[in-house]
């Protein structure tokens, strides 16, 4: 179902207003030493709008929302226009993946693509903002802007999106709760909790030092980068782990479907039945079962083939003539002929 242009515009602008307001609210909670880039849960809004409504709705939410936020905060609607574009891209890119490709997430693969698109969109948005600044605005300075602007912008957007967008999609029932998605959601959740708890504990421990000693800030960001890399590595590891469990199940489902359609050759199951674990056992039992069904099928087929309808033609002719050559039959035939004609 394609929403009309009016619906896209309306949804985009509505989300944009909320986004702009939230930009101003959440900037109260500033990240240490990154006074302008703040904790930004609202970045999930353009991303979700892009996925749930339309890529263009995501673009409008990010672009117009950022502009509106800047306008009411006193920064001016147009001063940081490159960041409007950055936020627009963050709504548009996940929309392209989520809207065009994956209507409803049901596999680990689809979930992985979605999450990576959020990280990728954050990177692409920040990269675009930086490039436009270098070309036209000339506000950033290198390398000092890197830890103070560019990196925090990417990290906050990527992490916020990574955590919140799946929650929104779950609430919007755009994630089908399959064995795969349940497992990956659970593992992702555990991963996030442990990494965020660690990062939070470290931040809390060095908070005083962070405020007073600017030299510590770079160390802090190194820790943040390591955390995000860990998050991504852990996520990829989780995907591999989950697929190790769910791929054999998919093979088993395919095999069951094949048997249901009368095909008992199950080459796709060989890999699974070679496993030493419970799934391997299940696959081996399934193969044996399919073999038995095939045997029974063959026996039945043979029974049909062997079924012979033996008719003694000589006796048949004799019995028939005994009936049809009677006077009664002749008379009957004549009467039947008569009333069939009328």
């Amino acid at each position, binding site marked *: 179902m394609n929403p009309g242009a009016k619906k896209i515009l309306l949804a985009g602008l509505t989300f944009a207003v909320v986004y702009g307001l939230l930009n101003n609210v959440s900037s109260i909670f500033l990240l240490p030493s990154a006074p302008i880039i703040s904790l930004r849960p609202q970045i999930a809004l353009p991303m979700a709008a892009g996925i749930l409504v339309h890529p263009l709705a995501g673009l409008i939410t990010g672009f117009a929302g950022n502009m509106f936020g800047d306008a009411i905060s006193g920064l001016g609607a147009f001063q940081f226009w490159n960041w409007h574009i950055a936020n627009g891209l963050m709504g548009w890119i996940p929309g392209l993946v989520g809207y065009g490709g994956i209507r409803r997430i049901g596999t680990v693969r689809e979930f992985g693509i979605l999450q990576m698109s959020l990280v990728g969109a954050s990177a692409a948005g920040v990269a675009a903002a930086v490039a436009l600044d270098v070309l036209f605005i000339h506000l950033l300075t290198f390398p000092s802007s890197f830890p103070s602007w560019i990196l925090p912008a990417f990290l906050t957007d990527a992490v916020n999106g990574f955590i919140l967008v799946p929650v929104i999609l779950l609430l919007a029932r755009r994630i089908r709760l399959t064995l795969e998605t349940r497992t990956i959601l659970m593992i992702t959740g555990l991963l996030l909790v442990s990494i965020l708890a660690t990062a939070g504990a470290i931040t809390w421990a060095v908070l005083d030092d962070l405020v007073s000693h600017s030299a510590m800030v770079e160390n802090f960001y190194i820790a943040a980068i390591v955390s995000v890399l860990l998050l991504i590595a852990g996520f990829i590891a989780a995907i591999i782990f989950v697929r190790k469990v769910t791929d054999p199940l998919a093979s088993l489902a395919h095999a069951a479907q094949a048997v249901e359609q009368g095909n008992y050759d199950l080459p796709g199951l060989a890999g699974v039945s070679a496993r030493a674990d419970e799934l391997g056992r299940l696959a081996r039992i399934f193969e044996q079962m399919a073999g038995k069904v095939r045997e029974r099928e063959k026996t*039945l087929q043979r*029974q*049909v*083939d062997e*079924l012979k*309808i*033996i*008719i*003694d*033609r000589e*006796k*048949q002719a004799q*019995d*028939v003539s005994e*009936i*049809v050559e009677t006077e*009664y*039959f002749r008379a*009957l*035939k004549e*009467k*039947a*002929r008569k*009333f*069939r004609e009328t």
Partner: protein
Amino acid sequence: MQCLFYTAAGFDKEDAMPEIIAIHSFRGGTGKSNTTANLACLLARQGRRVGIVDTDIQSPGIHVLFNLDPKDAPHTLNDFLWGKCDIGSAVYDVSRVLGAGKKDNLFLIPSSIRTGDIARVLHYGYDINLLKEGYQKAIEQFALDYLFIDTHPGLNEETLMSIAIADTLLILLRPDQQDYQGTAVTVEVSRQLDVPRMFLIVNKVPAALAGDALAAKVTAAYNCEVAGVLPHADEMMALGSSGLFCLAHPDAALGRALEDILRRITA
């Protein structure tokens, strides 16, 4: 001339000529009465007006399937054949088996179960023209679209009459060597009686054997179209003639096979 031809052939399906369908089997126990009753019921449920005649005067039984108590049926086919009543008074509305409140589209002409009546008909016999006239009258009086004739197994004179009268003959057989030879004789005799349309129905087939392969074998052996292969149904056995299968189990494989048969024979 062409116009007349179209009218006579029932060009308009709604005005199609009423059809007499006889159901026969060479041996007993093939499920003749059950199949007849179920086919009739399915047609009636499609809104057709259907009659059934029990010509199995020696061993009548189909009335049981329609819950028609012989006490409630003072007049029977026997009475008509002796000239004791007109055919109309031997016709009983049994539509209520189709559902509460249903009436006026399923009718039964039972045979007498009194042994004296049975012996008398068998002794004196009856004439095919009388029988044919009776059917014709019943068809007209009750505006029937189909009249099913449930016959006595074998090839006695009464059975031959039913075959001779029928527009369509359905011959039931089981996948059993005992049935094959007699069915071959029946098919040949019916051909000699010039039955316009003849189909075989293989009944009580073990579910695993029921299929196109068996139908093809039977078709080849008898050179006669197979209208259907009916699987043996435990549910039918469980009913034990206490009701009609097609109504009790409308979605069972047997019910679907019966509907396929109807589509073929009424095509």
